[in-house]
């Protein structure tokens, strides 16, 4: 039975009000100056911020790759566990997400500080103290920690549907472990991977609070710079919108590129 089209109305209204209109506003602000005239000045001014923009993208890519490397085996293990263990493991995965995001990041601050828990423990065995916080490593760690569940969950939900007999068949036919992953698991979990990559990459690239708290303000990302256009010394929504727009276009471009890789794999097998 086809659902009546009218059921889509609430969603369409939602998208109109909260996606289309704000997007139009961003574009409108990006191409106007403070005097209200149309100008490209804001877009040109972006050239000063390209380095930080690409640094944000690089950080987000690194975080996404690390998440993928951790999440792939994790998702597989959870999906192969028996039913009761499966739900326990999934709940364990979700529990940290019920705690406020800021609180969790604050907890990392106490762990990583020069006088923090980790350095004190290391001090007991005569090591350190190491500079663990206020560097780019800490920022990436924060991204991985906060967004890892977004990678594991889609991977798990795809992998749980892979029939055990498929894996057994591959093994019966003499495929070794590497081949099994490359030829069976990877292609079959591709939809989960692409969802997970988007779910990790997009929030990572635009985050500003993680870099402020764990980067100590010395590793600002594009999100911080955008935020500063609204809450900094000079209120400049035009430049802020231009930055957000450029970021969005680059991310969109990268996502479409990635998705092409994904579909190619699908077709190839």
């Amino acid at each position, binding site marked *: 039975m086809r659902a009546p089209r009218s059921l889509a109305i609430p969603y369409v209204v939602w998208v109109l009000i909260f996606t289309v209109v704000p997007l139009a506003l961003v574009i409108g602000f990006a191409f106007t100056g403070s005097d209200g005239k149309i100008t490209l000045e804001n877009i040109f001014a972006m050239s*000063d911020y390209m380095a930080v923009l690409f640094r944000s993208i690089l950080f987000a890519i690194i975080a996404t790759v690390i998440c993928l490397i951790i999440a792939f085996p994790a998702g597989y293990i959870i999906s192969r566990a028996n039913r009761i263990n499966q739900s326990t493991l999934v709940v364990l995965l979700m529990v940290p997400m019920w705690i406020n995001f800021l609180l969790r990041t604050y907890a990392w601050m106490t762990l990583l500080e020069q006088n923090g828990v980790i350095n004190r423990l290391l001090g007991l065995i005569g090591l350190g103290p190491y500079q663990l916080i206020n560097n780019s490593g800490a920022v990436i760690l924060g991204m991985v920690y906060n967004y890892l569940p977004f990678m594991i969950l889609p991977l798990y939900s795809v992998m749980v549907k892979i029939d055990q007999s498929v894996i057994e068949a591959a093994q019966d036919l003499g495929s070794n472990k590497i081949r099994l992953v490359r030829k069976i698991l990877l292609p079959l979990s591709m939809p989960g991977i692409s969802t997970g990559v988007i779910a990790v990459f997009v929030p990572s690239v635009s985050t500003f609070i993680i870099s402020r708290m764990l980067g100590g303000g010395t590793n600002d990302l594009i999100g911080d710079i955008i935020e500063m256009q609204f809450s900094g010394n*000079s*209120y400049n929504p035009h430049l802020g919108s231009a930055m957000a727009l450029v970021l969005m276009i680059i991310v969109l471009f990268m996502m479409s590129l990635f998705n092409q890789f994904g579909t190619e794999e699908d077709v190839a097998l």
Partner: protein
Amino acid sequence: MRRLLAFVMALVMALCLTSCGGAPEEDEISLESLGLDPELFSDYDYSKFKGQEITLNVANWGEYMSINDDECLDVNEIFEALTGIEVNYKTFASNETLYSKLLSGGATYDIIIPSDYMISKMIEENMLEKLDFDNIPNLKNVMPSFLNPQYDPNNEYSVPYLWGMVCIIYNTTMIDDEIDSWGALWDEKYAGNILMFNNPRDAFGIAQAYLGYSLNTQNKAELDRCASILKDQKEIVQGYVMDEIFDKLEGGSATIGPYYVGDAVTMCDDNPDLTYIIPKEGTNWFVDAMCIPTTAESKEAAEMYINFLCEAEIALANSDYVGYSTPNSAAYELLDDDVKADEKRYPSDEFLAEHTEVFVNLSPDTNEYMQSLWNQLKIDNSNTWFVPVFLVCLIAATVAVNVRRAVKKKRDNY
């Protein structure tokens, strides 16, 4: 059955509570019952708006009023009991966020408490309502030296709330030297242990004071010079922070950093190893004052609230709780003698005149210039090679995808 019983009980109790609660509302609430001394309280008619169900939206800095602490007076609760007006209390993190919230119309406030330079900016941009001082007789409590300030020359728009200076806080167990200058924040000895303000106005203010410039300089060459020493400083700074400084200094993760005197008092209370000084080069003297934005909905009630905050005991409670200095002479009289004698919290007028400067609003041009210098400092363009490499990678990836697709198409055609 038991459930029903419990329900009936609850109903009876609720009814009883509402009727009990309703009765004395008509009567005057005694000041004693609220923990206040009637002798110190003005005879202002606070019951004027009773029963009108007015709500006041108040926007203040975080942790900047004596509320939600069992050991202190709850200022807002007292006001609600006294006036029957409901207080909807919100906080903001910086003058600039408050400004952009007001400007974008995202929030309507009846009372805001921004700082000096932001007040002059808001006055210039017609964002503030002129106050009717007939409704704020307690203005007489405000010290004369705080009337007609630079940021509000005719004293038409604001009533000072709390004030303070910017100081250096450091850990005496980790730093043996006697510190007396902003230069300490540039001292290589403390590399990796220095904290710095994470907002351009305060950070530039320190560089300006250190270099002996005016804190309100609009001279671009001077600002460039400040940016360059801030850039040098970045090499040895552990982090740029705002309220995170509490944890980092109290916990000993950093040894030295600049912040506001009132907060320094709190930090030194929590960790006696810490101490604070006012650098000899001079510093910023700031005043936070109560104003009513033009978008306010109940101006008269808002003026009543301002008057209430100027009551001696209320101003004292706020100053006590926050640690900042009060401009209220009636509250000052009630302070402990050792606090009154503390030159860092209540310096003499001469000291303020000679060693401190108040921020005034800068021209939009200067603000923008300072912001862009700050952006450059924060994003650090040292690895410029990165952009071209990245672009090349992106293009390579695009080409790879397309070539692959073309090859496959060819193969499929066979």
